[in-house]
């Protein structure tokens, strides 16, 4: 038995055309027969000349009527509509989508019908449809990738099922990701408006703070094309399984580091007491040198502990900076003894050029002391025996710029690009230099929470320059005065400074 094929949309028109032709021919025959019989009844002989003429005229007239009226008024519009329906149905076909703007379609009133049909078809294919899950949705549930599409208003038009999206109380979908203040997605998007195309990637962006349930960590690339209905396309990769174990380790280490603060305080305190007491005795010169090395190690250990604790606070959005008017030379003086000791015990020369008459800056004394300490410590680690490390500061617009320069081993470009990422350590430094991979990460976080920036220039074999900026106090004094300068930092937002409630230095 031959299985009957299920009829489809495109099958309708050939069947209708066949039926229509059959009906037309039948109608033609019936009309001709009726006219012939009528003539015979009227007394005109069937084989006469008159009979033949009348039959011919009647046949041609009905044929023309069928062709002109039935085909143009009934058949052709129906053909156009069925062609349009067949095309938008998505069934495989060679038919061409009828153009609603032809004169014929305008004249016979088909234009609005076709346009409405096409609008319905577009809505059905729209990703915002509430209909059953699309093939894309189904596919995206099986991967660690997510896609989010935004229109030119920044409104989310599509989000695949596993995308980090949250719905606000007014039923608006928003991206649930915690960006660094200095590299936020919204700032990037705002900067795209005067461009045609743009693209940017972010690494290690969490959707919630450390310790929160359902925390996921993403790598993300955003593409922007002006005028495209899908103006911004975000492609996100859920990398939680890669990044989360490192965060868990840091959590544990931070817990341990907290307990280490007591003993290291005692060690550093007694070293301070002891080295000052024996420094006055000439016969203990050698012991004093040995004590200096222990002091340097204890101070570095203390620095690591501070970095770990501050990183943990920053990741939990608990890092705050206590902004006050400070002179940069005063901040540096608070750590100068330690830095000089670190440099001299490792046979480096530390040259400081921070003029006393620089404009004062808005800074947290301890935090910026740690920034100096981290950068100088790095310069010591990655410079050569006997090397020179220079620290200089100059005004630069509304900021004071600090440069920490070494003439050491330098870095290739691929290392520089990743330098400020958490836990990043180059392959080479992993093997040769001790470190945690969080010093520069927290340094950047601290500088940005002050509203400053940090950058690095490096040349392999020649050395590196780490530069950071801090806002001049006078330029932000008003902002600090109107807010709580202890619980709030400041951050740059386009040309203005706004309070940053997210930073806490405990």
């Amino acid at each position, binding site marked *: 038995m031959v299985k009957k094929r299920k009829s489809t949309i495109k099958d309708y028109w050939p069947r209708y055309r066949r039926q229509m032709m059959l009906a037309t021919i039948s109608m033609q025959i019936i009309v001709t027969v009726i006219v012939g019989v009528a003539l015979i009844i009227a007394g005109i002989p069937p084989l006469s000349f008159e009979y033949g003429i009348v039959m011919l005229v009647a046949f041609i007239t009905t044929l023309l009527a069928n062709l002109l009226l039935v085909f143009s008024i009934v058949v052709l519009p129906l053909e156009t509509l069925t062609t349009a329906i067949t095309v938008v149905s998505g069934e495989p076909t060679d038919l061409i989508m009828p153009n609603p703007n032809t004169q014929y379609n305008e004249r016979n009133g088909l234009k609005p019908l076709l346009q409405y049909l096409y609008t319905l078809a577009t809505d059905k294919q729209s990703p915002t449809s509430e209909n059953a899950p699309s093939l894309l949705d189904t596919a995206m549930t099986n991967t660690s990738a997510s896609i989010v599409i935004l229109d030119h208003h920044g409104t989310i038009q599509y989000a695949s099922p596993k995308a980090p999206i949250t719905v606000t109380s007014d039923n608006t979908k928003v991206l649930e990701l915690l960006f660094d203040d200095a590299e936020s997605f919204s700032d990037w998007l705002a900067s795209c408006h005067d461009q045609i195309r743009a693209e940017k990637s972010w690494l290690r962006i969490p959707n919630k703070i450390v310790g929160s349930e359902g925390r996921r960590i993403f790598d993300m690339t955003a593409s922007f094309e002006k005028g495209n209905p899908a103006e911004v396309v975000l492609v996100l990769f859920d990398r939680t399984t890669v990044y989360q174990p490192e965060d868990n380790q840091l959590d544990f280490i931070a817990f341990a580091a907290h307990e280490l603060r007591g003993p290291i305080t005692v060690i550093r*305190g*007694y070293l301070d007491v002891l080295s000052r007491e024996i420094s006055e005795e000439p016969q203990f010169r050698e012991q004093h040198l040995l004590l200096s090395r222990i002091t340097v190690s204890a101070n570095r250990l203390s620095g690591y502990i501070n970095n770990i604790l501050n990183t943990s606070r920053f990741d939990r959005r608990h890092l705050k900076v206590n902004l006050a008017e400070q002179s940069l030379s005063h901040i540096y003086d608070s750590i100068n003894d330690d830095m000089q000791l670190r440099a001299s015990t490792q046979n480096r020369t530390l040259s400081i050029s921070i003029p006393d008459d620089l404009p004062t800056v808005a800074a947290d004394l301890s935090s910026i002391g740690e920034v100096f300490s981290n950068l100088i410590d790095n310069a010591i680690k990655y410079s050569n025996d006997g090397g020179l490390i220079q620290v200089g500061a100059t005004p630069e617009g509304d900021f004071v710029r600090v440069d920490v320069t070494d003439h050491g081993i330098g870095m290739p470009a691929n290392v520089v690009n990743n330098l400020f990422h958490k836990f990043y350590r180059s392959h080479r430094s992993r093997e040769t230099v001790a470190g945690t991979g969080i010093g520069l990460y927290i340094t950047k976080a601290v500088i940005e929470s002050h509203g400053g920036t940090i950058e690095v220039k490096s040349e392999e074999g020649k050395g590196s320059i780490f530069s950071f900026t801090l806002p001049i106090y006078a330029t932000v004094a008003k902002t600090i005065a109107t807010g709580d300068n202890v619980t709030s930092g400041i951050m740059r937002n386009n040309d203005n400074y706004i309070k940053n409630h997210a930073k806490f230095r405990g």
Partner: protein
Amino acid sequence: MAIKTILCIEDDRFIGEMYVRSLQKAGYTIDWVVDGQDGLVAAQNKPYDLIILDIMLPEMRGNEILDALRSGEEDNIPNTKVIILTNFDQDEETRMAMRLKVDAYLVKAEITPHKLLETIAELGHED
């Protein structure tokens, strides 16, 4: 007002001994107590020029001692300066409230005895 007499309320014997030794060598007269209750009694019975106060203390915490000595608008030790010296992680609100009542708030992990001496010298020169 030059600072000559100091009360140190610190329960950690290593840290207490470290500060007491440095302060004595620098020429200060110092009394050292290791629990909060004794610290409050000592502060109420003798007019010290400076009190160095830890927060996490047995019997009575440093903030309670401070409240007892300087409660509201009443200051029972108007001629005494107070330095909080702690490693205790307080929330910012509590810390701010304490800062307002004291002359210096120092984190143990961030200073050394030498820096404590510098701070005391600065406080002595303030008046």
